[in-house]
């Protein structure tokens, strides 16, 4: 019997599962902070209306100006070009091709961290937005009017197009690119082709529906990084740099349809990636074996099995979410369950962040070193040494297992606390009466303890 290999598509190192004692401590701390938090909770909504204030005009102009915007756009377009060039011309080995680590580590994970620290940076560097703006500007110059948009994207579609594109992206990363049977997982050539296809798709959609509208609802990276940027205290509003209370930007995030699906997809895919190498590994293996016995080719069987479990895990996460909200609905004076969903979805963004850090922290610490050492100097993996760093590798002694474990558990607990704070704030503004708010929050508390315990459980099962 051929066993499916469960290995990261990229990188050479996996984390050890957290030991039972740390799992127990993590769970205990989660429960204690939850109840202490609830008893200390405030009685007046503090995060509704984010209190955005512009910084001094001079400082604002230093950051937000046409030259900086053009420069950031050019950098974005240049890097997009490097990705396609390296992917199509470089080595087949995903670990030695600049494109793969750049897309799936530096941008996909690194940009989340940058978005939280500095606000929506991706918007500035987004290559597709930069090109669309350049084209739109030229059109206006020549035609004397803004470019027409032949089709209108209805409001009720909301962020669903971005949800679809994001699902395709994570499927490509976690299922299609999954290593197995000696086949290189994330084939750089496939990454290059996918980048070109997505670029073409984005340009067509922006031309049809208008660039800004598509960036807000359909361009999945803008929408995904924009979600995390809501946590940041920094936001550019109407061309002016300003500051708001951290987390407060989340309060208005989930009003658009599709937002709930987006945050649940973010949590669900991280859960799947963690679970398949531990918690559900044996189930995956048995479904895979069953398919191979039924005559499906091994690679197809592996992809089908992983697709199936990806859907199951995302559905499980969504089910947990809706079950909690259904319980909350039973509190007197509650809005209907569906409405509760959009009212509270934003509180799960910090949970998604906690999951992301817990699962990928060591990956970005170690694989991120590859990006700035040998991949930078030898992007194609052909032996060149552009900046003299081609022979430096990854220093795996940078952080030990204990350090990684504490970051993992700490990030889950921190995400949990932030999520509770955001949800509590929203409950007060809905229920008015702080006693009813508290009662609705027991449900929310149970739900979030459930998610955080699930996260801890995944870490204890290996990931």
């Amino acid at each position: 019997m051929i066993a499916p290999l469960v290995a990261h598509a990229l990188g050479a190192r996996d984390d050890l599962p957290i030991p039972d004692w740390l799992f127990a401590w993590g769970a205990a701390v989660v429960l204690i902070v939850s109840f202490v938090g609830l008893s200390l909770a405030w009685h007046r909504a503090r995060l509704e209306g984010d209190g955005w204030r512009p910084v001094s005009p001079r400082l604002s102009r230093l950051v937000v100006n046409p030259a900086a915007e053009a420069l950031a756009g050019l950098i974005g377009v240049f890097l997009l070009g490097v990705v396609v060039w390296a992917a199509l011309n470089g080595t087949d080995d995903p670990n030695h091709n600049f494109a793969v680590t750049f897309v799936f580590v530096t941008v996909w994970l690194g940009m989340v961290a940058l978005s939280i620290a500095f606000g929506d940076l991706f918007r500035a560097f987004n290559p597709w937005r930069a090109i669309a703006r350049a084209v739109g500007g030229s059109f206006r110059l020549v035609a004397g009017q803004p470019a027409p948009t032949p089709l209108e994207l209805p409001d009720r579609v909301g962020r669903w197009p971005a949800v679809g594109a994001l699902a395709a992206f994570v499927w490509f990363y976690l299922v299609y690119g999954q290593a197995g049977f000696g086949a290189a997982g994330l084939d750089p050539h496939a990454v290059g082709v996918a980048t070109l296809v997505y670029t073409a798709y984005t340009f067509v959609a922006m031309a049809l529906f208008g660039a800004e509208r598509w960036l807000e609802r359909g361009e999945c990276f803008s929408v995904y990084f924009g979600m995390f940027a809501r946590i940041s205290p920094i936001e550019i509003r109407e061309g002016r740099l300003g500051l708001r209370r951290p987390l407060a930007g989340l309060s208005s995030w989930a009003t658009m349809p599709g937002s709930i699906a987006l945050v649940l997809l973010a949590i669900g895919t991280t859960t799947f990636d963690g679970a398949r190498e531990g918690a559900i590994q044996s189930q995956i293996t048995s479904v895979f074996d069953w398919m191979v016995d039924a005559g499906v080719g091994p690679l197809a069987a592996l992809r089908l099995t992983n697709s199936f479990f990806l859907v199951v895990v995302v559905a499980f996460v969504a089910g947990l979410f809706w079950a909690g909200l259904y319980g909350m609905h039973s509190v007197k004076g509650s809005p209907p369950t569906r409405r509760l969903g959009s009212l509270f979805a934003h509180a799960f963004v910090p949970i998604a962040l906690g999951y992301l850090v817990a699962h990928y922290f060591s990956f970005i610490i170690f694989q991120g070193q590859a990006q700035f050492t040998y991949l930078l100097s030898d992007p194609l993996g052909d032996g060149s040494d552009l900046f003299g760093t081609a022979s430096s590798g990854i220093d795996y002694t940078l952080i030990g297992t204990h350090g990684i474990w504490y970051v993992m558990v700490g990030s889950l607990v921190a995400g949990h606390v932030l999520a509770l704070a955001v949800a509590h704030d929203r409950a007060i503004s809905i229920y008015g009466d702080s006693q009813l708010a508290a009662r609705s929050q027991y449900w929310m508390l149970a739900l979030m303890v459930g998610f955080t315990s699930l996260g801890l459980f995944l870490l204890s099962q290996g990931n």
Partner: protein
Amino acid sequence: MQSRLMRAAIAVVAVIAAVVLFVVLSEGDETEPEQTPPAAERQAPEAEEPEAEAEVPEAEQSERERPEREREPSEPAIPTIVVRDGEPVGGVEELTFRSGDRIRFAIRSDVDEEVHVHGFDVYADLEAGRKRELDFPAAFEGVFEVELHGSGVEIATLTVRP
């Protein structure tokens, strides 16, 4: 007053739930090894399979974990991975070492190959039919693949524990 009672009740329920959850999960841990053997001591049955040819009886394997330095470097009692028809006999071998110890194991392949230990980036040529021993320090922790460089087949999972 009522809300206080309510909170206390919820606290009690939550603590009970946590205890139950923990007990259930730890039981889950104990039943699981049959499907996924994560540690060296748990995969003893595998090593004893007659066709596995891994020349490592259980006692020696668990002994290997601790008094590493006291033993002679020439001692043959190290785990041996046998590769036949390009696949590891008995499945992907689980090797576990402690951080700071020496990582020692041997591979015997029926074809010429090259072995690559990920992370440590140790490469070694394998000659068909001959046993090749690897010995290098466990300088850092984590879970790493040991693969045949030519075919890309994983033959062992190397775990370095703190």
